[in-house]
């Protein structure tokens, strides 16, 4: 934004200059003779030639890479061969999960390598702190690239800025030398870390369950169960409406929350292939009958007045607050909602999550089909001085003890499959674990939101679903619009494209 403030200054100069002085500069130009002109152009040439080489060496950095630390000896205790005296730098996103869990993990690292100096920092400004360091070729060794200032993963991968984490995945796990790290992870984690090809660039540490969140108490008061078919869903909403309660609300200003329940519903109705085709930006992927059926189902909620009035003007916090107050029954969301809404949720709310409601018994996948995926993407930069150190730190975090520590402290699951025994789970977390058990193998993992951010949020979310759920566009129009957006993205050569493997 630096150039912006420069513009104001420049133009303000024009603004406040007094009328009288303007003529003088004009006259000055006519006073330059031919010799002066030649002199000036030579001078300009002299300046501009070195300028061009200097230019490329400024904001985009020189690209002088830092020296890599020498590899240490690989032992059973140190399978990644970490140099036990090399410093390690870890930058964490300081968000909803706080930084305590990472500090605890750093302490374990320091204990294992007493000779190594660990520099740990936590910030919300990931991009503004780290983008220059990537440009200079001196990034830290481990980064939690998360939050509003997340650096675009596709670009980082495309520009070969990340280290392949396969050695970490193939290393023995922290708790059991007989099991590889990759076999201790929850479904989808390894796959999510891939972009194209076999390399795994990202390790998502937190594990998020997406779905329809509701109050068990409110459902009980209606004398209803969570609906499994769409007819039941409409019946529950009708019943709620009679009691003056809306069926649904959602983050109207950020309608890209709707896919949290809509996409797995599409997957349930039409099968996994439909979602894969959408992610792969295949032609006419959105025109699949399953997509149409699910869009129409959601549109029906709006048309029948089952969506809380005013929802399109609410942001995520406002919609969650309305839902917590009991103005609406269901909200599509992720498992962070328990933490985020903690201070507005009544104690007896009975927070629960369910896999999305399907259409009917002809759906391809059984009820319980759920979207769950990793959050908090950890990466080790390609130009890190101590990449094995960064990976070792991750290996420590993926131990049962660290995972349990995380779950206990921040009420969220981790990528480590398990780690919930022996700690008391909050209601939302407990129902998340239960929903994962019901889902079993039927966990879907749509990738649009990490592959094509603009397409997912702005185009499909705000312009497509947002307009439809506000009642300003029909499902048919919306599908046509979204298909056009997807085709546009598929054709755009400035975007890197990915495919499901």
């Amino acid at each position: 934004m630096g150039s912006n403030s420069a513009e104001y200054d420049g133009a303000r100069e024009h603004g406040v200059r007094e009328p009288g002085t303007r003529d003088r500069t004009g006259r000055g130009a006519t006073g330059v003779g031919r010799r002066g002109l030649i002199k000036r152009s030579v001078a300009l040439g002299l300046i501009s030639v070195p300028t061009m080489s200097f230019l490329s060496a400024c904001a985009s950095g020189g690209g002088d890479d830092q020296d890599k630390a020498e590899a240490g000896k690989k032992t059973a205790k140190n399978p990644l061969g970490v140099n036990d005296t090399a410093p390690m730098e870890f930058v964490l996103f300081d968000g909803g999960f706080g930084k305590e869990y990472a500090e605890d993990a750093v302490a374990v690292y320091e204990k294992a390598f007493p000779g190594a100096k660990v520099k740990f920092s936590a910030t919300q400004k990931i991009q503004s702190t780290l983008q220059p360091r990537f440009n200079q070729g001196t990034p830290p060794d481990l980064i939690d690239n998360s939050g509003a200032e997340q650096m675009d993963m596709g670009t980082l991968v495309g520009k070969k800025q990340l280290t392949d984490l396969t050695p970490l995945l193939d290393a023995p796990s922290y708790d059991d030398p007989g099991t590889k790290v990759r076999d201790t992870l929850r479904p989808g984690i390894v796959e999510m870390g891939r972009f194209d090809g076999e390399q795994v660039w990202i390790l998502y540490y937190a594990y998020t369950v997406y779905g329809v969140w509701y109050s068990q108490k409110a459902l009980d008061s209606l004398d209803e169960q969570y609906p499994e078919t769409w007819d039941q869903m409409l019946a529950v909403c009708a019943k709620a409406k009679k009691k003056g309660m809306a069926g649904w609300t959602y983050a109207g200003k950020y309608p890209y929350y709707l896919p949290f329940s809509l996409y797995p519903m599409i997957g349930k109705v039409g099968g996994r292939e439909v979602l894969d085709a959408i992610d792969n930006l295949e032609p006419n992927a959105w025109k699949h009958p399953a997509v149409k059926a699910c869009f129409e189902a959601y549109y029906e909620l709006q048309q029948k007045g089952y969506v809380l009035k005013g929802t399109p003007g609410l942001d995520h916090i406002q919609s969650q607050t309305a839902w917590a107050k009991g103005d609406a029954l269901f909200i599509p969301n992720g498992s962070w909602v328990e933490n985020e809404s903690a201070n507005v949720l009544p104690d007896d709310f009975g927070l629960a999550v369910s896999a999305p409601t399907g259409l009917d018994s002809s759906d391809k996948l059984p009820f319980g089909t759920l979207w769950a995926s990793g959050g908090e993407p950890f990466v080790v930069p390609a130009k890190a001085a101590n990449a094995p150190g960064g990976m070792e730190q991750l290996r420590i975090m993926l131990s049962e003890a660290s995972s349990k520590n995380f779950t206990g402290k921040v009420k969220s699951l981790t990528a480590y499959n398990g780690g919930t025994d022996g700690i008391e789970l909050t209601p939302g977390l407990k129902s998340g674990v239960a929903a994962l058990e019901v889902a079993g193998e039927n966990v879907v993992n749509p990738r649009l939101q990490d592959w094509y951010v603009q397409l997912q949020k702005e185009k499909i979310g705000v312009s497509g679903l947002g307009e439809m759920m506000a009642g300003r566009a029909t499902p048919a129009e919306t599908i046509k619009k979204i298909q056009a957006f997807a085709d546009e993205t598929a054709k755009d050569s400035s975007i890197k494209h990915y495919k499901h493997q």
Partner: protein
Amino acid sequence: MQHGKYRFIVGFLAVPLGLYALFVVWPFVQSIYYSFTDWTGLSPDFEMVGFANYERMLDDGIFWKSLRHSLLFALLVPVVTIALALFLSFMINVGGRRRRGGPVISGVRGSALYKIVYFFPQVLSIAIVALLFAFAYNPDSGAINSFLRAVGLGGVQPLWLGDPDLALWAVMAVIVWSTVGFFVVLFSAGMASIPLDLYEAALLDGANRITTFFRLTLPLLWDTVQSGWVYMGILALGAESFAVVHIMTTGPGGPDYSTTVMVLYVYQKAFRDGQAAYATTIGVALLLVTLAFAAVVMRLGRRERLEY
């Protein structure tokens, strides 16, 4: 003397000009240079791509939408803000009824208080103002719709920021609200320097308040108005519109691209999509728009300067 003069001037100007070149001109040159590359902003290697970014920009529907909205901001927001500020400052300084025993020219009753009240929003940062209005525009429990319900207009419950036809106006209103106070103070200062005897002469000639304003106050205040106009236009093209659109609107930039502006698009391309080069291309377009705006206003506003 002629010879030494330039050396003398250069001696004084070298440091400020150097700073200006380094921190103002240099970033301009750089961003223009980057607009011809495919720099992502996330890695030090990039290549020259010629005019590819510019061609892409001309085909980009979102760019055109953002340009249209930015132009609307630059034209409408200053007109409304300055008209409102002129009216308010005239009433505060000149528009009052003549009171027995008081000065010949004075503002309306309580004008000292109004001056402070109008300036109040200026004390708040634009981010806070935007956040406050985001709450006020909440269709469910926000102040505006609650007020409408309270006065019996329960049937009129607009979605405000959620409605593509209203969102842009709602955002503009916030900028006007937050900046009008500054101009009231600016114009008040300008009016204070207009000699009183001119007003007295006008009064003796039987001029009413409207005539006084258009024939006397406005011409004598023209320079201030013109500077204010350019300043406001640039604010509306740049920082203020970015802050309110980014904080308040759906998406941000929506619903359905109804509030996206050029600065927001620059930001999204550079920091969300990792396309820094394309972002600088839009930045160059924004620079041209800003310069053109300033040039047009200065050109249209050129008048004889009045000495008084």
